[in-house]
């Protein structure tokens, strides 16, 4: 806060300089002198600010995320520490914990008969009642993530940053490094940046990961152990993700700043979700038209296939953000993102925030709209014709609702209070509603709701000091 005050101190002097600015149209020779004067003012500011730099700033926050119908519940505490040095170098550490409990859809369709599923670990099974959406309630995980970042100026026109992070879950490890270079142009009104990030992830799902499009073995089978082993591809697998982001940040006017980013992301390796399966639906005319296709075992169990995605994905994203300060101190923040990838998905994201200044506190309403098209290989179910008696007519398929055509809206409100120098408490509540659309099936299946809406409430409380 002290720093801000000093900045404000400069501002008074700067405002005086501003009046002089009008004269520069007539007396252009004054401009270099003014620039020098302002530089020395900023220099003086830096000197004054030295008491503040070299000290730590901390943010602690906790997020609670709760989906409706007892689905995923998450609690996520965050601890963030930033140290700013005299010469503009910044050191940042961040630790995040994440606890997930609840249930997640396993990708199978609801049915007019009870369905029995083998747990992804192969250690047990669970039954879904008639006309209910199959949900795997063994879903739980704990994650710890830590990251460190360092950024520093190289000289007046250049700066760089570098970072590393690690994230560990029970069955997942992600390690990454990143770096970026910035170039300032036009008296720092334009900033060009290039960033690169590399991440290596290892998955070790309990029970190994399933072979794509293989049939889910049933516990009722006498040869379950052999069948389960045959449906496994291995105990661990990896994926690598390379990201590059090219950005332009431009000061438009005294109260407007704008950013454009182009990002490209390449994922390579095991990209399946080992916990997702697809129902095989009988499309033969008759009593079971639109019902689950059954296997030939004596117990006549439903046939389900493990999902299979491509082993690479390339995403492009285009991001535009603008911030505009009103004369009364309110701030409008709007952004738009267009993303497309070689899985056939494209998406639009619009985000809007209005920060309403109320003296020491503020209120910030938030609106976000998201829409995406479905992936080329998205299938809410597989027909028995496509299943082709165990020799599928396709190579890739996933019923993951996150790859379906959807739109989503977030409505939120945040309140913050700067109750002392450099100290702020804030809290926000948001509501998230996701709606999906797609093929509604045929026969008996068309009686089921394949695309129920999902809703979540987000609550966050934070303290900065």
């Amino acid at each position: 806060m002290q720093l801000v005050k000093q900045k404000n101190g400069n501002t008074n002097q700067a405002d005086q300089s501003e009046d002089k600015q009008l004269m520069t149209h007539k007396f252009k020779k004054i401009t270099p002198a003014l620039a020098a004067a302002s530089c020395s003012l900023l220099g003086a500011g830096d000197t004054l600010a030295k008491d503040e730099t070299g000290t730590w700033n901390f943010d602690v926050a906790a997020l609670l995320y709760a989906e409706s119908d007892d689905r995923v519940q998450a609690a996520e505490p965050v601890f963030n520490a930033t140290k700013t040095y005299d010469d503009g170098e910044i050191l940042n550490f961040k630790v995040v914990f994440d606890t997930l409990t609840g249930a997640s859809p396993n990708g199978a369709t609801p049915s007019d008969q009870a369905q029995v599923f083998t747990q992804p670990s192969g250690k047990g099974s669970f039954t879904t009642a008639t006309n209910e959406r199959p949900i795997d309630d063994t879903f739980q995980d704990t994650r710890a993530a830590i990251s460190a970042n360092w950024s520093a100026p190289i000289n007046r026109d250049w700066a760089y940053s570098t970072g590393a992070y690690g994230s560990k879950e029970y069955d997942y490890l992600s390690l990454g490094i990143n770096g970026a270079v910035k170039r300032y142009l036009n008296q720092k009104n334009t900033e060009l940046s290039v960033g690169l990030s590399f991440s290596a992830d290892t998955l070790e799902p309990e029970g190994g990961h399933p072979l794509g499009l293989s049939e889910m073995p049933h516990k009722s089978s006498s040869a379950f152990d052999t069948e389960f082993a045959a449906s496994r591809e291995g105990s661990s697998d990896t994926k690598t993700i390379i990201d590059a982001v090219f950005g332009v940040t431009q000061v438009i006017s005294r109260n407007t700043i704008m950013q454009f980013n182009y990002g490209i992301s390449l994922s390579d390796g095991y990209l399946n979700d080992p916990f997702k399966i697809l129902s095989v639906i009988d499309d033969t005319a008759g009593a079971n038209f639109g019902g689950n296709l059954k296997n030939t075992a004596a117990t006549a169990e439903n046939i389900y296939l493990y999902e299979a995605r491509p082993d690479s994905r390339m995403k492009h994203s285009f991001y535009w953000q603008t911030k505009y300060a009103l004369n009364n101190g309110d701030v409008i923040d709007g952004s738009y993102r267009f993303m497309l990838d070689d899985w056939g998905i494209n998406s639009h994201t619009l985000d809007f925030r209005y920060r309403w200044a109320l003296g020491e506190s503020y209120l910030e309403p938030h609106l976000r709209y998201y829409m995406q098209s479905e992936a080329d290989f998205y299938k809410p179910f597989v027909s028995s014709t496509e299943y082709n008696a165990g020799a599928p007519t396709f190579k890739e398929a996933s019923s993951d609702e996150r790859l379906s055509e959807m739109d989503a809206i977030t409505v939120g409100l945040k309140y913050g209070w700067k109750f002392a120098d450099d100290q702020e408490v804030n809290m926000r509540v948001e509501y998230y509603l996701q709606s999906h659309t797609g093929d509604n099936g045929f026969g008996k299946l068309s009686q089921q709701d394949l695309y129920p809406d999902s809703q979540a409430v987000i609550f966050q409380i934070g303290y900065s000091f």
Partner: protein
Amino acid sequence: MMNKAYLRTILLIAINSLFISACSDLGVKPWERNILAHDEMQLNHDPVEAGLDDHIYFSKEASSGGRGFGGGGCGCN
């Protein structure tokens, strides 16, 4: 699909380049930065909240990144 996609990519890069060349006329003098220097005028002024949001939407939707890297770093998607 991809040809159309790449065409769009190239078009957007071209538009961005136009903005950059137009940018030399935009901007402020160093002594006009008092408003832009405010905390709330930083493009990512609450990185903790942005990080939490990115994690939620990465877990629930097929898109990620934009503001920064789209990586992920978790088994949630």
